[in-house]
């Protein structure tokens, strides 16, 4: 289920994008909801972290797309943003508001679907998911996006998270199976790392959420490969 906002001052453009979205949803067998807005102000008024993807026209009456994007970013850093424009704009400006890409008008369906595909990947990455782990004090919910890394020590899994350290008994294999779909990768035999928090790479170490972790020589290549692909998929 994806919620998508289309912001454009021209009704025919809104209709075109809505049609594309319906066709895209049918082809991919996805459920989408689409809300259309005829201006940046209207959209910002209605916005309450309730969309995964926003298609934003740049050349609009009233406040333009770029200004809308800047104000949107003050409130939500993670929503996936795709600009629609007449001019292909390699913009620094686009980078400054963490836009995913530009759709150049007249937008062809092929172009649209290719970029939507990417947007879905980015949107999936921004979703906030939780896992439940059983600790001696009872079950605890951990937000996956808040886990820096998982350390295994004598059959104990230690979750290093924003909210602190949580220790659970269990094998790393189970935990790996659960977390790999959410961009976790093993950097050596006892650490499962959230790629989102890798900030530094050294010869045989990486920095994750402030801590330095060793990288196994046999795992280095595949770990770097996963990190490279992850970085290419997200919106920096």
């Amino acid at each position, binding site marked *: 289920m994806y919620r998508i906002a289309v912001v454009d001052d021209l009704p025919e453009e809104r209709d075109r994008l809505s049609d594309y979205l319906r066709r895209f949803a049918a082809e991919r067998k996805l459920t989408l909801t689409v809300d259309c807005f005829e201006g940046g102000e209207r959209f910002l008024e209605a916005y309450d972290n309730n969309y995964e993807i926003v298609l934003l026209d740049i050349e609009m009456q009233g406040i333009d797309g770029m200004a809308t994007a800047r104000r949107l970013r003050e409130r939500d850093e993670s929503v996936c943003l795709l600009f629609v424009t007449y*001019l292909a704009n390699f913009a620094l400006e686009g*980078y400054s508001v963490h836009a995913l*890409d530009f759709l150049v008008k007249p937008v062809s369906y092929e172009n649209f679907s290719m970029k939507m595909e990417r947007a879905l990947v980015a949107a999936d990455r921004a979703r906030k998911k939780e896992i439940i782990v059983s600790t001696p004090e009872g079950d605890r919910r951990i937000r996956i996006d808040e886990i820096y890394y998982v350390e295994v020590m004598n059959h104990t899994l230690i979750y290093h998270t924003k909210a602190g350290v949580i220790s659970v008994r269990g094998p790393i294999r189970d935990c790996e199976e659960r977390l790999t779909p959410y961009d976790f990768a093993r950097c050596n035999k006892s650490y499962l790392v959230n790629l989102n928090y890798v900030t530094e790479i050294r010869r045989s170490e990486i920095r994750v959420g402030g801590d330095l972790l060793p990288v196994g020589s*046999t795992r280095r290549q595949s770990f770097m*490969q996963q990190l490279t692909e992850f970085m290419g998929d997200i919106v920096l």
Partner: protein
Amino acid sequence: MSAVEESVLRILNGDPLRLLLAVHLFAFPTFRRRPFFGLKAVLTALPLLLGFEIVYQLSPGGLLPGNPLLDRALLLLPAVWLYLTLRICYVCTPRERLFSTSSALALQNLAFSLFWIAKTVAGFPETSWPALWVSWGMLLLIYGTVLLLFWDYMLDREGHTLPMNRVSQNAIVIVLFVLFFTRRFGGTSFDVYLGLAYSFADVLALLMQIGLIRETDLTLKNEIVEQLLASEQKKQRMTAENIELINRKCHDLKHQIEALRHISSDDERNAYIKQVEDAVLFYESAVKTSNETLDLILMEKQLYCKEHGITLTGVCDGARLNFISTPDLYALFGNALENAIESVSGEAAENRIISFRAGVRGDFLSIHIENYLGHALTMRDGLPLTTKNDLSYHGFGMLSIRHIVDKYGGTMSIRTDQKLFRLDILLPCAEPAEA
């Protein structure tokens, strides 16, 4: 000397140990080791070392003393075992295993022959402590020399994709030679002159292997030069087209301005002004990434793309690319975008789509370039395959990109799925990035 001591001496100064050391000498610096390497190395060594000793105990004159030919053929078994040892301990291809195994056979034979000459001249028994010290001293010297000779290949084996037919030719020659021109198993029919002849032949065999490496090195360099040449030609063609395009637009513009002078009706004038505007907009495809080199590359490619109905869009902060030198940045983006343009040029008009993104997180830079790809690609060594007859597609210029990525200590990855070709590059930034 006790029987146990003799056995120990025989193992420590024996052909199997020399063979094992030789094969690991070629493999250890060259290939990636598999998990549990130490354990696997020991477990693969034991059967060879102990097997020889057991056979010697059972039948000192060889396994089949009655049939010297078959007896020698049995010496193939250790060679097969070495091949398997490589398979178990290292990540390498069959041809690399064949190359290492045959080189190791020649090296071992050389070490043995030289030791035999020294032993005969000095006159001490083969199974004695002085013999062991002499043997190991010579072993260090010979293996050390060979290590130096093969060092380039060991550090850069990716650059040397050895041709299978030549590897197997060399291997067959060496194996046959070592089988039939070595001392008979456990036998002692060997003198100084034979030893010299064998050493000479072993040195030739090793030189043959080095020659093979040098040759592939040369082929690789030729390939790179050819690619560079072809890429220059392509660049010239694109630039020429761009100049032609600008000339044509200027010409149109001149006529449109001329026409404006003579138009009286407002509607017609507005239509003309619109046309002139469009023509000017053409240059205004705001390429402002705050990196002059990148702006230049994008400007040029954008002109080409617009004229050929290719949609090229991207988001990036060029300032973050400043740590890459101008020629490297030019080669990196130039090649990547040219590849993408070349690739989508063969697609239907509506599918000519290229998009890129470059951004920084922590202390590394991620560059992502993707384009529509309607057909499957054959990959080799993580790069798309190209041949001389097929200079289209992506393989083109990829070597150059990989070279730059390596130079900056980065990683690259190519994925082709969902009708997309995706190139990802991750480079550590030289300067610390601000938050």
